[in-house]
């Protein structure tokens, strides 16, 4: 498929925006059915136009593909530049898929101010996809920040009881982190051009191109790299969220409406980890190689895994429980990234997808019972397997996927990450593995309390099982979980090249660990390897 003459990335990015505008200007507020149809049509169309990316993507090529470029602010050297590599590709596809699910799962859950709701969801969709497509640092920052606005309103208007608090906390935390990144961006800009603070600039023409700045930044003196690493770090770490910057997450996830929680978990948290692989690693390799920096990162990641899992164990509120489990899961991703080897980084990227699928699905499932019973307390349930057998099955699959059972997606990610960590330091792998044990504990215990035993609460006795529409939102995620669990090599193929570049950038060996090479060498990968 030849997409070289189509601005495909811009199309994928702006289809939802177009939908938002269409709803604002063409559909009156009272016609809620038409609004839902239009919103669904536009996210579905967006997913449809994003699919060709998967097939047209050249897995054997380095660098960015489908690149679009026009000048935006020539005075500053800012370009409107889009382009993707394998990492952004999988995240974009995850985003467009989740977009459909987020819209469809809101049909009955959202009954007030529907027009605004779907417009905001569509806007959010555009901003998230744009963030993954950007190849210009300035443009990236624009998308990165503006994304917070629709999410703020989604939580604030349609959220739970403490929505006001959760919404502003979410906005302030993430904003506070990212503004320091702005300072980092300015510093990079001046380093590349005329210099600042005693650093003599390189005298290059002004640019914000991520490719060019990455090359420039990688050559910076070590101490400047460390400074800038931390300027970017805070923004990403809060988004991830890494311990101890995670406190906004339980509030935001818990109070957000179901679709908001799904998108937060599946996509927004990935912005942080994406930032680490797109910027922190290749731009500041010396800082990343610095043993203190790695030590701090890995320490925080492991504390996140273990502490997150322990806090998850004691939660009484289902949504809060799953929210805290994200802290633990994202700790794994961070551990994989800072293992700085092929297995670690590939595992981290796969685990980003997995977490989106599994945790997104779990939030959906919680939203489904919440809509029926209007309580999120685990104690209010029990014995649900009897009235809702299909629901119980879906929940089982996704819980198992989340805890990393073999044959499901979670296993692939966690196993690969542990492999990477093991190669670096056996103790890292050991500590992280305790997180898996705890993960099995909190999920199985949750499952037991919710589904097994007698129906103690009469309100639960006659709960209707899943509707067709609800199954429709869950089925693709189950399919994805099985696909990644059984046959992950298509995804490994897509992310291999960018991962190799990352590992090379930070000076690690790119040779694959043997077990993985077996697993992940699909036909495409072998072809790519055969080519010179």
């Amino acid at each position, binding site marked *: 498929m030849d997409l070289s003459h189509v601005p495909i990335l811009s199309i994928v990015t702006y289809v939802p925006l177009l939908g938002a505008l269409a709803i604002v200007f063409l559909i009156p507020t009272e016609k809620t059915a038409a609004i839902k149809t239009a919103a669904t049509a536009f996210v579905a169309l967006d997913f449809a136009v994003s699919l060709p990316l998967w097939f047209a993507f050249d897995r054997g090529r380095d660098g960015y593909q489908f690149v679009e470029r026009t000048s935006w602010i020539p005075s500053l050297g800012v370009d409107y530049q889009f382009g993707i590599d394998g990492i952004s590709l999988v995240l974009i596809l995850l985003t467009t898929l989740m977009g459909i699910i987020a819209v469809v799962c809101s049909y009955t859950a959202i009954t007030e101010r529907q027009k605004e709701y779907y417009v905001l969801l569509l806007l959010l969709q555009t901003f998230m996809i744009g963030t993954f497509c950007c190849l210009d640092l300035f443009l990236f920052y624009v998308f990165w920040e503006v994304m917070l606005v629709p999410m703020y*309103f989604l939580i604030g208007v349609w959220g739970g009881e403490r*929505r006001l608090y959760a919404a502003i906390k979410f906005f302030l935390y993430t904003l506070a982190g990212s503004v320091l990144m702005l300072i980092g961006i300015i510093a990079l800009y001046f380093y590349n051009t005329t210099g600042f603070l005693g650093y003599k600039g390189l005298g290059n023409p002004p640019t914000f191109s991520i490719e060019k700045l990455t090359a420039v930044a990688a050559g910076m003196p070590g101490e400047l790299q460390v400074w800038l690493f931390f300027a970017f770090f805070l923004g990403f770490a809060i988004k991830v969220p890494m311990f101890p910057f995670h406190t906004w997450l339980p509030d935001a996830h818990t109070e957000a409406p179901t679709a908001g929680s799904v998108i937060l978990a599946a996509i927004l948290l990935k912005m942080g980890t994406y930032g680490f692989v797109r910027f922190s690693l290749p731009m500041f390799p010396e800082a990343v190689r610095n043993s203190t920096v790695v030590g701090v990162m890995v320490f925080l990641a492991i504390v996140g895994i273990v502490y997150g899992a322990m806090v998850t164990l004691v939660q009484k509120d289902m949504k809060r429980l799953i929210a805290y489990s994200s802290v633990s899961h994202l700790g794994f991703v961070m551990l994989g990234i800072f293992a700085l080897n092929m297995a670690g980084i590939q595992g981290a990227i796969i685990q980003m997808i997995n977490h989106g699928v599994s945790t997104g699905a779990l939030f959906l499932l919680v939203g489904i019972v919440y809509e029926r019973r209007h309580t999120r307390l685990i104690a209010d349930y029990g014995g649900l397997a009897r009235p809702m057998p299909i629901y119980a099955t879906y929940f089982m699959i996704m819980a198992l996927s989340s805890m990393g059972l073999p044959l499901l997606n979670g296993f692939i990610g966690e196993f690969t990450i542990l492999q990477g960590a093991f190669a670096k330091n056996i103790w890292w792998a050991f500590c992280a593995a305790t997180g898996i044990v705890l993960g099995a504990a909190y999920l199985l215990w949750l499952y037991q309390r919710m589904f097994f035993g007698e129906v103690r609460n009469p309100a639960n006795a006659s709960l209707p099982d899943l509707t067709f529409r609800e199954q429709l939102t869950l089925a693709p995620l189950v399919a994805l979980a099985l696909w990644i669990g059984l046959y992950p090599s298509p995804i490994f193929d897509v992310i291999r090249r960018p991962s190799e570049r990352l590992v090379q950038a930070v000076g690690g060996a790119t040779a694959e660990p043997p077990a993985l090479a077996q697993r992940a060498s699909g036909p495409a990968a072998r072809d790519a390897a055969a080519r010179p």
Partner: protein
Amino acid sequence: MSLSLRPSDWLLLSPELFLTAGGLLMLLLSVAFGKKREEFLGFLSVLLVAVTGILLIAVSESPHRKASILGGTFLVDNFALFFKGLILLSLILTVLASVRFVGAAPYPGGEYYALLLFAGVGMLFMVSGNNLIAIYVALELMALSSYILAGYFKAEIKSTEAAMKYFILGAFSSGVLLYGISLIYGVGGTLGLPELAKLFASAERSNLLILGILLILAGLLFKIAAVPFHVWTPDVYEGSPTPITAFFSVGPKVAAYGILARIFYVAFPKFHADWGLIVAVVSAATMILGNVAALLQTNVKRMLAYSSIANAGYALLGVLGFRTEWGLWGILIYLLAYTFMNFGAFTLVILLESRGYAGESVSDFNGLAQRNMPAAIVMLLFLLSLAGIPPTAGFIGKYYLFSAAMKAGYAWLAVLAVVMSAVSLFYYFRIAAAMFFSEAAAGVAKLKSSYALTAVVLICATGTLAIGVLPQPFVAVLKNCVLGP
């Protein structure tokens, strides 16, 4: 020194002269027109300002504006043109925002518009001033008109208090400024900025000179409401009629920044080491105090007053950056953005002013989204811009200012500034939360806007969004806005 006026000089002075004549005409007409037909005066003022704008365009094309005229006291360089355009913009916006407001007040409107135009004349002269005394006289013209405008609602105790406070503190600061000028004159023997620049380029640093510079700085910091010279701001902003508050928050501030830039960029760059640290500390204190105090306000006018103090702190980063051209660019683009977004935010307050003259509380914004969705959305746009969230004008302006601070070597200040602008989001979004999350009070009708106010809001919103989304045409102008002929 020649004080004779050549024919070409008349052209260069034509905007100021025309606006003065317009103000006098307004005084005459106010006697002839009764309270009922006063709206006409408002629209006539808009017309007068618009014609002044056309004259300004004619001036910008003139080949004669290379040299300063009126004995070297008046200079129309690109820098002055930029500021004059901005001042005329704020005048038009103020008049449009005033029409309904003044019409509803039981006081004659003619003198209101006349005073506004006279303040405009003062500002136009200020930014062209190339001589300390000329600048001072123009500044006093602006200030005296402003004092009266603050007390326009003369039967209201708050308005009178505002005028009184503004007058006493303003007169005091003018005295400080004048004292500084006299010291400079004592050291340099001249008041022309280019002459002073030449003199100081080779002069030794002396304590008297530094004292003079600092006193001038203090006088100007009062005008832009920087800490510790900010105390008048919340009271004056709260007490003045809201359109006048909106005007104070942009017009006179813009003009004051104009002369601050001119004096410190042209005459005193050599002594950056002496005033740089002071400006840095003042900037830091202004950002912190403005933002933190704004957090505590429940009255929107006071909140916006503290927010404008905080904004003065950001703009001081540009003054610090005067070592490089980034500082100048930063100030120019930020003031342009600030005029649109701040005036826009105040216009929404004017629109909401439902209970007569009392200050607006945040809760008056409750449920604005239900009462008038477009109004709520543009207000959100102004708030986002004030908080510096892209893609809005405020972000582009702040980007340049933070760059200026970094470039000038004040990285710590840039870090403080970004952190403070994150803090500012908290109070700006209290208004956003009220608009979108709270229910409107029972029995409150849909909100209708007048044509004049709609026009103001549209101008401001277009400006805020255009600078944010397509900044190139605006930032391209900056590079030509250098000081000097």
